[in-house]
Structures are given as structure tokens and as C-alpha cells.
């Protein structure tokens, strides 16, 4: 503990670490920071944006800050040659969960275009209806619904859907989905799907996608 005390005493003369920086950075490490979730920390972040950027860049991370949408999070810097070990994990998604994200993304876009409200709220039934077209016909509807519920749960875990308090089966679609399901991500989805369909149509018939996301 002594070295820390020493550096604190000498720091008086050097550029000082702003008091709020540690709490802002550690909070960002833990996950998305929403303006409405913690107004005080959000204000600190707005004041310390450049310090936070400098700090996390040492770790190969970028600060993504959307002031008008009111969220901020950390992202791995895209660098194919980098030998840095990954600090931010990538979560693997099944096809159905990935597709659900795409459909929710579409919903947000339509919502923004057609409505002046800020919060997109969907009931479970609306999500079911939205997805139904893309699921194979099944005689066992209960099973299909169970699977979809599991997918919804996964999306809730990922933080892109949020169950409303006090209202059964009602979800808010987190606007941050827009930052994660962006054009680049969709492009990748599209090309993987095209590859998969090519293998389906190929002489050998069905085959797993060649990419292994590990």
C-alpha cells in the first residue's frame, strides 16, 4: 500500500487524476452506462471524455459515447494484426437469436421513422408475431413458443431487451441495440447466410457454416 500513498503525495505536482475518473472507468468496464440510469456518473463522463478515451486506449479499447441517445460503452479496437489478447468477450449467438436481433433492429428503425416517442415497447405477443414468419411451420406450437421464449431470454441477458417492471410479458427494446447491430454486423450476417445457403444448395447438401466463431 505504501507505493500508492507515495504516488498520491507526489501527484500534487504532476497532472492529477481527476477524482471521478476511476469510478467512471470502472463503471464502464462493468457494462453500458446509461444517462438515465446514473445521471451523476453520466455528467462526470461527459466532463472526462478525453481522459477516459486516453485511459482505455492503453488497453486497446475505444469509448463509444452517444450523447443524444444517452449511452456509453467500451469496445475493442478493431485491429486484425493486433496481438493483444481480447479484453472484451464475444458472445456466440445461435441463428435464431441473431435473427431476432436483426428483426428488433428493424423495428427500432421503423419506430424512429414513424413515431416521435423515445421508448420502443413491445409485448411478447408482438415479438412472437414478428418472428413467426421466419420460423418453420410446426405442429407443435407450444414447443416453438418455448424456444422463442428462450431466445428472448438470451436477448434480455445480452441487454438488448429489458423486461418492464409491473407489466407481464412487456419489453423495452434497448436503443443501444443500434450501436451493436450496425451495418458492419449486418453485412457479416448477410454474407454468412449467403454462404450457408450456397452450401445448402451445393451437391453435398446441408453442411455447417464453415466459420467457427471460437
Amino acid at each position, binding site marked *: 500500500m505504501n507505493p500508492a500513498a507515495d504516488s498520491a503525495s507526489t501527484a500534487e505536482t504532476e497532472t492529477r487524476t481527476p477524482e471521478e475518473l476511476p469510478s467512471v472507468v470502472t463503471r*464502464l*468496464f462493468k*457494462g*453500458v452506462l446509461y444517462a438515465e440510469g446514473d445521471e451523476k456518473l453520466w455528467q462526470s463522463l461527459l466532463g472526462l471524455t478525453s481522459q477516459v478515451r486516453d485511459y482505455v486506449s492503453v488497453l486497446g479499447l475505444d469509448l463509444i459515447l452517444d450523447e*443524444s*441517445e444517452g449511452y456509453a*460503452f*467500451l*469496445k*475493442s479496437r478493431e485491429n486484425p494484426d493486433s496481438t493483444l489478447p481480447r*479484453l*472484451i*468477450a*464475444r*458472445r*456466440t*449467438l*445461435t*441463428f435464431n437469436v*441473431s*435473427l431476432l436481433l*436483426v428483426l428488433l*433492429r*428493424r423495428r427500432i*428503425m421503423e419506430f*424512429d*421513422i*414513424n*413515431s*416521435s*416517442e*423515445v*421508448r420502443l*415497447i413491445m409485448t411478447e405477443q408482438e415479438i412472437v408475431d414478428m418472428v413467426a414468419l*421466419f*420460423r*418453420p411451420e410446426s405442429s407443435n406450437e407450444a414447443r416453438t413458443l418455448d424456444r422463442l421464449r428462450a431466445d428472448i431470454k438470451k436477448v434480455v441477458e*445480452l441487454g438488448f431487451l429489458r423486461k*418492464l*417492471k*409491473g*407489466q407481464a410479458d412487456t419489453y*423495452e427494446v434497448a436503443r*443501444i441495440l443500434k450501436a*451493436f447491430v*450496425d*451495418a458492419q454486423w*449486418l*453485412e*457479416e*450476417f*448477410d454474407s*454468412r*447466410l449467403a454462404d450457408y*445457403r450456397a452450401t*445448402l444448395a451445393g451437391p453435398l447438401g*446441408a453442411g*455447417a*457454416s464453415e466459420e467457427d*466463431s471460437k
Partner: protein
Amino acid sequence: MTHQTPRDAMDYYAINALRENHAGWSLLRAQNAPLAISFFMAAFTGPNQRNLGRQQLIDSLDDVLFGLRDAYGEDKFPRQASEYLDDWAAPERAWLRKYYIQGQDEPRYDLTAAAEDVVRWVESLRGRDFVATQSRLTSIFAVLERLVQQSETDPDVRLKELQNQRDAIDAEMQRIRDGNIRVMTAPEALDHFQQLTALAKDLLSDFREVEQNFRKLDRQVREQIATWDGTQGELLESIFANQQDISSSLQGRTFQGCWDYLMSPESRRKLQELLQRATQIEALAKMDNLHAVTNLHQDWLPAVEQTQGTVRQLSQQMRRLLDDKVFLENKRIMQLIRSVESGALAAREQPPPGDFMTIAAPSVDIILPFERPLYEPSRRVMVDDVVETADDADVDAGALFSQFHVDKERLKSNIDAVLAEAEQATLAEITAAHPIEQGLAEIVAYYQLATESDWASINPEAEQQISWQLEDGSIREATLEQIIFGRPA
């Protein structure tokens, strides 16, 4: 509510279209219109409230329903309050606006302007207790006068008008000096009061309508953005032309004027003072809603602020939508989503198995090794649950309570006190000066002090005897090695 059709083109077709499509008319035609309208009155227009939470509305609808079911039987209104509420807020009804505000998961509701118009029209059907005639006439005169005078461009005519007014005022002042004061009669006062109430309500409903019209304008712009084929520059140009329309529109300017007026400290002070004085008027003392009217401005301010807030929010989102990056990306994203959707449809019967995509977690995985509990082999614990009752009759429980503590500081000060007089002292000398109080334990503590101190020595060659007296008067004696405490250098 204003409609796209110009007012002068209210022909058969336009009216028929209104009958088919207008939310207000559909409310009038609805089966449960009496229920809906009476509930709207009870919840919104009666207490002048807006932005009500869902639970609050369900409670007030339950009250209305309870009264009705009591009178007509349970079957008359079979649905739950919440179901009615959902029905009335559904897009095809649009009698209530349902929305979510930041930081709250409970939806909120407001009456739409169309529904409010219906409520007020229905209220007007009942007729008034007496028709406000004189006050209306005076206001018509006042408005007409102002209209004519302030539109007059000829300075001579205007000066002459003002001169006439001054003469009239002088004459009135002279009459009052002569002791001839004319006070408004009670009916006149009531008449004016009623008009005041009506005007105040009109104003509140104006605010609601203004807000709704802003939303409509906003929707038009959004549609324009969504269907735009040209370049972004052209789009912006077209929208700025439109924005110009919003702020310079009749509605926009009237609203701005109202806002400025309400926000001016001078007019607010004046309004407050006038309302305060109005409550003192004797003829109005018996009016029930006198108090409500004097709090008018407290209803206005939040209503105006809300409208202002809506406009602010709309323009902020519009800016976001028009942002360069978003505008271009949205087009690209829409293309990609369509492509993904058609691909997914084609692969519907045989979707890709296993993991398909990855997405970055929004957090950094930091696992602190020491936060993890380490493996600990479980031990088998023999539980012997047989309880044997021991016979404790001859155990002295007093031992539990007679614990004591030897205060070493006290002993040290005893040593120091003796050493103040001498270069060194044996334990026997010290205990002679300061008799032992706690028996053997105290001697052990002295012994411990001696072994810990650099200035004490223990001489195993010699012996010394230390004695102390117990509480019952008996003497105890201990023989131990000689301990010599020296004065610290």
C-alpha cells in the same frame, strides 16, 4: 381538431369522410360512448389533469364502473378496467394517447384533442344554468373595438379614439368623485365569472390541440424522410422550408405569443393579483369552483411547459434522424435487413445449426482471481442430535460472572511511582507500597511486565515472598524468583 380538408369545402363527401374516419366522431358513435366520455370527464377534463399513470386511470375507471354495475348489474360492463383502457388507446380508436416517459416503466395516458372536443361538446349539450349574455356582449365589444382601432392606420383617427376614451375615463372618474359608484350586480358578476371559467378551459384545450398538431407536423416530416429518394441536401432544404412553416404557422406564432405572455414576470404578477382580488368579490363567495378558477395559472403553466417540451423533444429527435451518418447508415441498414430477411425466409425450413454470429459483450471481463472462492474439500460433520440434560445443581454459575481483567497500565504506574523514589525496586517493595488487589493474576501480570521490559531483571538465585489479603481477611503468600525493576535510563 383541424382537418386536412379546408373549412370551406365541407361538402357531403368531406363530412362523410369525417364520420367514417374522425376519432371524435367514432367516439360519439361508439357503443360505450357514455362510459368513455363520463370517464374522460372524471379523470381528465374535470380535474384538469394530463399525463396520468396507468394505475391511477384504472383506479378511477374502476370507480366509474363500480357505480354503473351497482345500478345496472354486473353484465352491463363485463370487461376489466384495463381492457377498456387498452381498447381506447388502440391506434384505431385514438381517444387516449399512451406513451412511456424516461425512467418509468408504467405507461402514461393523455386525452387526445379529438376526444376532448367530444367531451366539451357533450358538456355543452346539457345547456347552462343561465346563458352568459352581457359578459359575452362586453367582450365582443372590447374585441371589436380593439380590432378596429388597432387596425386603423390613420393617426388622426387613432388619436381621436384615444381622446374619446380619455374623456370617457374622466367622466367616470368624476362620477366616482361625486360618490356615484356603480358596482357590478351579483348576476353580472356570476355571468362574468362563468365566462372566465369557459375561457380558461378553452385555453387549456388549445394547448392540447397545439401539441397534437405539432406531433402531426412531426409525423409528416418523418414520412417525408422515410420516402425520400433524392439527395440528403435536397431533403434538408425541403425540411427547412417546412420547419419555417412550423414556426411561422398561425399556430406556432400564437403559441409562442402565449408562452411569452405567461413567462413574463409582469403579466404573471398581474394575473396572480387579479385572481387574488377576484376571490374577494362578495357576489362570487358562494361559487363552488371559485377556488379552482383562481388556481388557473397553476394549470396553465404545466400545460404550456408540456407543449414546449414536446416541441423540444420532437426537434431533438428530428435532428438525430437527419444526422449525416444516421441518414446514410439507415439506408444501408435497411437494404441489409431486407437481404437478411429474404435469406432467412429461404432457409426457413433448414436454419443454420449451432452458433452463427458473435456479438461483443458490452462489458470488459475482468475476473479477479482472489474474488473466487477456492475449492474446499467438504468435511463430514457428525451430528449427534441427542441432547443429554446434565445435572448442574452443584455447579457454581458465579464463576461465569466473576471474570476480571488485570489492568497492566495500573501496574506500570505502580512500578513507576516506586521507581520515582529509588534507582531500582524489587517486586516485594512495589507490592508493599501498592498492595496486591487481584491475587495471583496480578503477580503473573507483574511477572509478564518484567519479562517484556528491558529495564527489569529476574534473578533465579534469590527468592522473595509476596503476600496479599483476600476479601474474607485471610492472607495468601506466594514465593517466586526475585524480580527487580530498574529505572529506565
